[in-house]
């Protein structure tokens, strides 16, 4: 799972029947320091998240589990809203291991920082 911020919504009238009534959110994955990591993606909401909120999302087949027994064809779903997180890390390099598609904006290296509050 990964941290992300909800940066938008998608409206699609013509869509798979399994997506009917579901909220589609545009997410920007975040590092624990609130830096953007990788490309924005679209995820189905399962917890009532809204724009500007910090959330975490699950990828892959498991993204369909929150909606069971309904069949929702999604490979990414928001499964929690973050109240806060703390990060005690040494220098984190946010380079993705496998860029999802093609070139990836290389995340910057930043100096150490002790605590990050969500939603700032």
């Amino acid at each position, binding site marked *: 799972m990964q941290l992300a*911020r*909800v*940066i*938008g*919504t*998608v*409206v*699609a*009238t*013509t*869509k*798979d*029947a*399994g*997506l009917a009534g579901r909220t*589609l959110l*545009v997410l920007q994955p975040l590092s624990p320091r609130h830096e953007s990591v990788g*490309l*924005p*993606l*679209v*995820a*189905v909401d399962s917890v009532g998240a809204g*724009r*500007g909120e910090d959330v975490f999302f699950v990828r*892959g*087949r498991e*993204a*369909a589990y929150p909606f069971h027994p309904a*069949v*929702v*064809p*999604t*490979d*990414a779903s928001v499964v929690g809203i973050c109240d806060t997180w703390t990060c005690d890390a040494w220098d984190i390099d946010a380079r993705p291991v496998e*860029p*999802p*598609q*093609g*070139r990836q904006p290389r995340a910057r290296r930043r100096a150490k920082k002790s605590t990050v509050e969500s939603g700032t």
Partner: protein
Amino acid sequence: MILGKVVGTVVATRKDERLIGSKLLIVQPVLPNGEPRGGTIVAVDTVDAGVSEMVLVVSGSSARMAAGQADRPVDAAIIGIVDDLSVDASA
């Protein structure tokens, strides 16, 4: 899921028999602002999308959860046509 723009169609006479009757489209993944990003992919179309439309593409095993794809050897499916996209980049 990712956002993509339909840029073409694929015609393949010889293919896995479970793909017979499937419409295959070439999709260019795009950022929310429409800027292309990365290489194109081929996705099975389940919503009757057309060239130049912005669509939602689901990948991996979840693609087989799209309508009618349960037993097909597909790893990407177009499952929605985007009418409106509202993104606040500063959010």
